[in-house]
């Protein structure tokens, strides 16, 4: 067996599995064979200052400033935040608020740039040499370049690279599962830029101080596996590709780690606590760009697909490009397009406003027709248990939903609500089309709100109590001072009276 795996390369690792999961129609054929293409410069670019998990960046430019491509225009604030750079050269026409690429469409701080068409680079960051760069150098460069997790979670990548100081790390898992249907951006990236992606992986492994590298690719991406194989092999004897089954949600960090290592992350913990760090393949590519060429994260590969778009494609899009421009580049939407999504069809966000920009975490822009999307008609639960069997977290969605409908959020938490990863497998499989995951997200939001309310109330109470204590102390001090004063006055009076009496007696005596 050992000989066999030595001959066939490193992809014959032992695979583990997780319970549940679903098998949605992949529909990747729509865009799988379209090469990555560049888009012409858009006429307007809107760069939100919050494209990542954490605190929003602080704007460094003002209206009418001229910016160069790659120039830092938003500075990370605090430890969990990310730098923002100008995607092209041009004039800043507004530093204000604009609708977020989110279903709410709420305004977020945004820098609007009118490109000058020259696409002129500013000074790039100095290149790092793999031979001399220290782990700290690499992590610092990743931070400077504003790189975030590009699978959609957008967690600042440098924070994860710096975890080596906190945990005893041994393995880097590259998440190239791309389990969401339709999306092919990571697939194309690995097929066309395998060497660059692997170079980035090498830098990340160096920054983390690990030698064991597992690149996990779903079995429906044979071409990507073939393209990556020799380059991954060059990363070291302990680096290899693991072909994982095509199963949603394989790309969920903890489920992927379980599949490729057999280790199950304990509830409420990080994979890092087991010595394993997971990064996305597109993040590795961005790291390569930043470390080798000093280029910050100002563009990304986006899959534009769905039967509601005329020409499905994989496009390299500048961060901040409005969705309308991206869709126009792909021939626009067909008449049947019924909903527009950012991300994949399982967890993607519905969007109405076409002027919102592509951001660092946008891996897909999907225009779906009514025929390929879930309807909103729901029937009563028939207790078929399909949701229970499909849940990758071992939860009982139908029971949780009943409790939430009855407004018993504590009961729902008791049966595992907080262990739900919102993957949507239950809603996907439900024959009655009940919005299960939607109920769980609602309940989680409501719980968070309650918690923050409670926190706020406690804080108010604490402050009120502190103020009362302060006032009491002041009053007490005043009272004491007053008493002291009174006592002193009384003493003085008594002394004076005694003195007067003594004087009187002595005067009387003298008179006698």
């Amino acid at each position, binding site marked *: 067996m050992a000989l066999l795996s030595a001959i066939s390369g490193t992809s014959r690792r032992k695979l583990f599995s*997780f*319970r549940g999961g679903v098998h*949605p*129609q992949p529909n990747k054929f729509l865009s799988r064979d379209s090469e990555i293409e560049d888009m012409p410069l858009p006429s307007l670019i809107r760069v939100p200052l919050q494209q990542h998990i954490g605190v929003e960046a602080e704007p460094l430019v003002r209206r009418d400033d001229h910016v160069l491509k790659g120039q830092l225009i938003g500075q990370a604030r605090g430890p969990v935040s990310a730098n923002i750079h100008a995607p092209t050269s041009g004039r800043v026409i507004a530093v204000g608020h604009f609708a977020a690429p989110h*279903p709410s469409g709420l305004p977020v701080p945004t820098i609007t740039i009118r490109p000058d068409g020259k696409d002129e680079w500013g000074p790039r960051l100095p290149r790092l040499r793999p031979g001399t760069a220290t782990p700290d150098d690499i992590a610092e460069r990743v931070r400077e370049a504003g790189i975030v997790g590009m699978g959609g979670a957008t967690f600042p990548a440098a924070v994860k690279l710096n975890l080596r100081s906190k945990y005893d790390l041994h393995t880097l898992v590259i998440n190239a599962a791309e389990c969401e249907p339709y999306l092919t951006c990571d697939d194309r990236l690995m097929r066309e830029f395998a060497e660059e992606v692997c170079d980035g992986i090498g830098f990340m492994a160096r920054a983390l101080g690990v030698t064991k590298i597992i690149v996990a690719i779903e079995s429906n991406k044979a071409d990507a596996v073939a393209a990556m194989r020799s380059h991954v092999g060059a990363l070291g004897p302990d680096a290899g590709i693991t072909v994982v089954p095509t199963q949603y949600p394989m790309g969920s960090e903890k*489920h992927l780690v379980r599949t490729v290592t*057999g*280790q*199950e*992350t*304990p*509830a*409420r*913990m990080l994979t890092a*606590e087991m010595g394993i760090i997971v990064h996305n393949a597109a993040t590795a590519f961005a790291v390569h760009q930043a470390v080798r060429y000093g280029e910050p994260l100002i563009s990304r590969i986006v899959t534009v697909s769905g039967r509601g778009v005329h020409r499905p494609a994989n496009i390299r899009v500048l961060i901040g490009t409005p969705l309308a421009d991206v*869709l126009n580049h792909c021939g626009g*939407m067909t008449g049947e*397009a*019924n*909903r*527009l*999504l950012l991300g994949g*069809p*399982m967890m*993607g966000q*519905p969007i*109405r406003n*076409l002027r919102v920009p592509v951001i660092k975490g946008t891996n897909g822009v999907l225009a779906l027709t009514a025929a390929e*999307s*879930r*309807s*909103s008609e729901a*029937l*009563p*639960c*028939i*207790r078929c*248990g*399909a949701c*229970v069997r499909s*849940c*990758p*977290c*071992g*939860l*009982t969605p*139908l029971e949780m939903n009943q409790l939430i409908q009855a407004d018993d959020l504590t009961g729902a938490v008791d049966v*595992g609500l907080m*262990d739900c990863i919102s993957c*949507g*497998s239950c*809603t*996907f*499989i439900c*024959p*009655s*089309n009940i919005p299960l*995951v*939607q109920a769980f*997200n609602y309940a989680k939001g409501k719980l968070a709100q309650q918690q923050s309310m409670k926190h706020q109330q406690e804080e108010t109470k604490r402050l009120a109590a502190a103020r009362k204590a302060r006032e009491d102390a002041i009053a007490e001090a005043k009272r004491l001072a007053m008493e002291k004063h009174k006592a002193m006055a009384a003493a003085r009076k008594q002394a004076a009276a005694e003195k007067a009496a003594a004087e009187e007696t002595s005067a009387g005596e003298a008179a006698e």
Partner: protein
Amino acid sequence: MSVEVLNAAPHAHSRVTVSRAMISVMVCLAPATGFGLFQFGWPAVNLFVLTLVSALGFEILCLLIAGRQIAKFATDGSAILTGWLVAMTLPPWAPWYVAVLGAGIAIVIGKHAFGGLGQNLFNPAMVARAMLLIALPVQMTLWVMPDPIVSANAPGFLDALAITFGQQTDFDAISSASTLGMVQSGLDAGRTLSEIMSQGYSLHDRFVGFVPGSLGETSTVLLLAGGLALVGLRIISLTIPLTVLGSVALLSAVAHTLAPQQYVPPEMQLSSGALMMCAFFIATDYVTSPMTSLGQAIYGCGIGALIFVIRTWGAFPEGVAFSVLLMNACTPLIDTYTRPRIFGRDRAGKPLEIGKGRS
């Protein structure tokens, strides 16, 4: 270019719907039902159609009273399926009121009294069967010899109407149809099993269905084929059928080995159409069975064991309805104790410890 739909994720769906599941079950029931209708002729056809029509009628009536959308709920196929299952268990030449009463009990008491689709604790078809058995013991145990619809002796359509809707009961009825019933009365009369068996139907006839019996329960083979098709369509899993059949087979094998003259052999038990129908079509009812595989295994074993006990020592030769109802009552309890293990936690709900992997 504008998009108006703002539904929350997921936007994809498996396309398996409630009505698709219901229709699949009906398709898989069709061969055994067709065989029954063919065997028992026009009276059976009348009874079958009447049960389905009254089930749908009661469904619409209940929806009207409950003030629900009739077009949406009456078309999900669940009422027709319930009616179908009730009809399968009726004596084929039973009078019309048995059909109407059966459908009424199933839909009104079995289903809507609990709150409609998905809310019932007990399997509606089995509620109807159990209540009919108790309320109308004579009508529910009048069987006829199979006589294919094409044969010269079979009643014509008009004669059939008279049998179903008239008071005509002068057909050649036999009161103890099922072999198991015959065995039981024989044993009670003090005869040995081999004596009784020599008079009964051959195993082959029982498997294929050339025996008197309920409308749709005579052909064990066709029920098995339909059930396996249902598994193949992924409408049901094999857990419940295997545990029901397995526990009946195991218990009867043990009993038969210990006392061959008292207990019927396992193949005799397994050749019963009612058992096969229960294993694949009744016990697997989504609403009234547990939701996890472990729970379903416990539930299936419970049904199998109860069927064996009731058939062997009980007063009713047919234990299916009562076994299913008894285990239906246990379903909420089973569900509470057989929740799956949550990812990252042990069975007790405590987070796993690092390095130990999964429990």
